[in-house]
């Protein structure tokens, strides 16, 4: 095996060089252009996937290398040696990357930048290992599946690539998810190889693949399908709902609340009839993916324009033992945000404890920061995952000094805050200055109402969108914008539904009473109804028992339900109508029919054929994947790049005895 290992290593020289160049580019790119870790991670993952796929294709080509195959090594040990060589070839550039990464990015800068995205357990310098693990796992998986089997390779590419993109482009819990996925992938690769080596039989490898890789494919596949049918599909009809209330025009141009993980997006803008702020779709996307980064860019843009920039500095607090403890401070002059179990306010702070809250709280901050520019009310509610226990709040008052906060001298408003006191009651939180005036107030939303976003109302000379390049548009967006004339807060009302929902808008303007308006958002056109209906398509490929359970399971009624329904349990994301259940049944029948056809060609007994039919009926398309793993593929070996259909009547593997070729009378046997 050693000889094969060294031979493979030598033959991977080209891969080494490509990866090495890649690694250097990545590392320098990060240091030189201050790319987000997230972007680097995405690129590295794609690199892993692409090189793994290429590598796997090479393996497929080498499978025909009979000189190598004919030696006293099992096929698995041979593959193992190859894989080991590949891992080595991957590790060397990765280590070069990490080295450059460390050298090029000074430690404080490094930590600070990563701190915006990475959870605390990854902050201790293990991001690099995480990065390495994620990319290597992607590489290993793709190499394994592309190099060994065709269908899983397709499945892998179909499911894993977009899921990986999704995972790495989204925020919040994405890193955790990515880590989990990487871990599972690595586990799959290791376990299948070890099991295969231990048992030394292909059937064992297949069983291991079935149990592990099949499971991952199922989970990822269903997750992707859910994403497509709930999020992507409903994105096909971005709607703008326009209503008027008094002299205010409300315009909701958000997409349906299809994916809870997007809850932090500012979906709506609102403003007086004479003008309103409009966030074009690309900006909405930025909010979802890179909002924090975007905010920083904006700040820089404004500074370049010589404008006064309100400092932004999110600080996340935690309420513990009757005190609010600072959990995180950003050096950037950014304001705003709410944290789990606490709230934020704040000017610049130099140093702070590592941030250990999920990223969404930063995004909350980013979403609301514009509100806290005057004496306005912020109406918010902590996320449901860990609400502030109201009972633990002193119903009378809790006073917290904010003097310890480092206040930027450039901003008048935060200076006032430095001498202010925070007063917490059962219903609200108040910032009170020395004279007792309320600087601003934080209230809880009523029950069954959930914070959605908060927006400044700014004047525009005219209604205008700027479909230009991103950065350019961002600049123009600010240049044409007038000063704030008030702000609005939007919230969702229960029960929630991905396609039909109600947005409650609260508009606060100086010298005006609060204006409250409920905006009903629902599909209107035929295509919108169709898109909304199609979200149940996730039921279609589910195994029949799951589809049935999904059909009979309760629909989400609350925001929390939706969260759990969509995120925690993607298997039950469908079942919205009997039609989808019937379609699922039809698909299961089709799968069973196809399985029968295939099994008759590859199984020796009718009993096995019947078992495969039953299995594929129960499991649906997954059953076919399973069958593909378990049964040999040789009879459908692709020839000339295309899979040939097997004529069932001429099949050699049916249960009937296979007749000998008819004698021609010209045989010579002796």
């Amino acid at each position, binding site marked *: 095996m*050693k*000889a*094969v290992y060294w*031979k493979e290593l*030598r*033959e991977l020289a080209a891969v080494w060089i490509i990866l090495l160049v890649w690694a250097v580019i990545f590392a320098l790119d990060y240091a030189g252009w201050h790319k987000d870790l997230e972007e680097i991670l995405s690129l590295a993952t794609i690199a892993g996937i692409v090189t793994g796929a290429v590598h796997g294709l090479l393996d497929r080509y080498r499978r025909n*290398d*009979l*000189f*190598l*195959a*004919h*030696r*006293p*090594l*099992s096929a698995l*040990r041979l593959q193992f040696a190859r894989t080991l060589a590949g891992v080595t070839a991957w590790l060397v550039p990765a280590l070069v990357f990490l080295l450059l990464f460390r050298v090029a990015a000074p430690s404080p800068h490094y930590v600070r930048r990563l701190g915006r995205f990475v959870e605390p357990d990854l902050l201790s310098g293990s991001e690099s290992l995480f990065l390495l693990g994620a990319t290597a796992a992607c590489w290993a998986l793709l190499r394994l599946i592309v190099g060994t089997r065709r269908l899983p390779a397709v499945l892998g590419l179909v499911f894993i690539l977009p899921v990986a993109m999704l995972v790495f482009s989204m925020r919040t819990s994405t890193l955790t998810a990515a880590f989990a996925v990487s871990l599972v992938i690595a586990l799959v690769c290791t376990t299948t190889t070890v099991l295969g080596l231990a048992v030394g039989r292909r059937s064992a490898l297949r069983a291991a693949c079935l149990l592990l890789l099949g499971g991952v494919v199922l989970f990822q596949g269903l997750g992707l399908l859910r994403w497509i049918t709930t999020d992507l599909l409903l994105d096909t009809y971005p709607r703008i709902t326009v209503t008027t209330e008094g002299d205010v025009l409300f315009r909701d141009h958000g997409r349906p609340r299809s994916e809870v993980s997007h809850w932090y997006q500012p979906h709506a803008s609102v403003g007086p009839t004479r003008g309103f702020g409009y966030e074009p779709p690309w900006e909405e996307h930025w909010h979802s993916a890179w909002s924090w980064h975007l905010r920083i860019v904006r700040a820089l843009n404004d500074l370049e324009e010589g404008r006064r920039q309100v400092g932004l500095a999110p600080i996340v607090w935690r309420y513990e033992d009757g005190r609010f403890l600072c959990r995180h401070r950003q050096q950037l002059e950014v304001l705003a945000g709410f944290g789990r179990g606490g709230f934020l306010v704040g000017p610049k702070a130099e140093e702070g404890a590592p941030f250990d809250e999920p990223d969404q709280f930063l995004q909350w901050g980013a979403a609301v920061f514009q509100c806290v520019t005057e004496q306005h009310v912020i109406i918010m509610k902590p996320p449901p995952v860990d609400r502030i226990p109201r009972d633990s709040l002193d119903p009378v008052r809790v006073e917290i000094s904010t003097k310890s906060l480092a206040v930027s001298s450039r901003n008048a408003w935060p200076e006032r805050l430095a001498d202010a006191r925070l007063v917490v009651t059962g219903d609200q939180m108040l910032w009170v200055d020395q004279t007792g005036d309320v600087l601003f107030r934080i209230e809880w939303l009523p029950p069954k109402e959930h914070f959605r976003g908060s927006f400044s109302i700014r004047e525009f000379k005219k209604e205008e969108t700027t479909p230009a390049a991103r950065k350019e548009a961002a600049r123009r967006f600010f240049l044409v914008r007038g000063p704030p004339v008030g702000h609005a807060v939007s919230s969702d009302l229960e029960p929630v539904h991905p396609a039909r929902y109600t947005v409650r808008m609260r508009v606060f303007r100086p010298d005006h009473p609060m204006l409250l308006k409920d905006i009903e958002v629902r599909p209107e056109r035929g295509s919108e109804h169709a898109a909304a209906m199609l979200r149940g398509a996730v039921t279609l490929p589910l195994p029949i028992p799951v589809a049935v359970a999904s059909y009979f399971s309760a629909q989400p009624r609350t925001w929390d339900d939706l969260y759990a329904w969509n995120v925690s349990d993607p298997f039950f994301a469908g079942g919205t109508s009997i039609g989808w259940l019937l379609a699922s049944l039809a698909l299961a029948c089709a799968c069973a029919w196809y399985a029968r056809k295939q099994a008759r060609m590859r199984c020796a007994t009718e009993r096995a054929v019947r078992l495969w039919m039953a299995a594929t009926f129960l499991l649906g398309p997954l059953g076919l994947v399973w069958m593909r793993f378990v049964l*040999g593929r*040789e*009879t*459908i*070996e*692709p*020839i000339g790049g295309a*899979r*040939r*259909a*097997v*004529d069932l009547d*001429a099949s*050699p*593997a049916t249960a009937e005895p*296979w007749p*000998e*070729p008819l004698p*021609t*009378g*010209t*045989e*010579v*046997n*002796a």
Partner: protein
Amino acid sequence: MSESPVVFDRVTHYYGSERALDTVSFRVEPGTIFALLGRNGAGKTTALKCLLGFLPPTRGSARLLGHDATELPPDLRNRVGYVAEGQQLVGWMKVRQLVAFQKASFASFDAELCAVYLKQLGLPLKRRVFQLSRGMRAQLALALALAQRPELVILDDPAMGLDAVVRREFLEVMIDLIQEEGRTLLFTSHILSDVERVADRVAILDRGVLRVNAPLDTVKERVGRYRALFDGDAPAAPELPGLVRARRRRNELVLTVIDGGGAVPEACTKLGATSVEREPMSLEDLFVDYTSGGES
């Protein structure tokens, strides 16, 4: 009696809907040189792949040195020398590196013997494999396979692409090396004249079906070519048992028949033939008649 090192028992193999082997059964006895013949795509390489466990038979079973081909223990390959079609080797390695590579892989590999073979064949140790001529590569592949001291040598078209001189040289070396220790040899080839010179027994695959499996002498003895001359144009070929091929050329009718003996002259005479003669047949003639078949 020792067990046959190679046994094919009703082996059928499909590539998709393409039947490459159809119920092929034969065995190779120890110490014999067995030639597996057939046209391109007849299934020769597929048969060897099935035998070596690279392809599982769709039906039937193949046994190699007493083991089922689908479950060959890795160590068994120490006892089998194999040269794949096209003499696949590692091109970037130098000859001596390749020898070392083989030595590291095969427990039974005898480096000293290999050195002797290489010297005997005049192969340069310091040249890279891709720099060698095709003939040298073939010889190198053979030397590497034989240096394992295998009980069974399997060669898949080892002389493919070699010119007549190199081929003859190669064959001579091959025969010498193999017969030295009474090894069993199973090989495929298109070069029938070579096969005729070395093979003890031949098998002919015709579109996946085994049509001939007999000692070479027996085949030559039983398959005869008869040339019948007529006064006018030759008539259509008569219905004959064992007729392999019939050809008409103006006034002559050429029939290739198995065990034709007295039946062919008698039938031709009935058709008005003025003379009927049995011609000597080379293996190549026989092969062409077998694999092209029919009447022309």
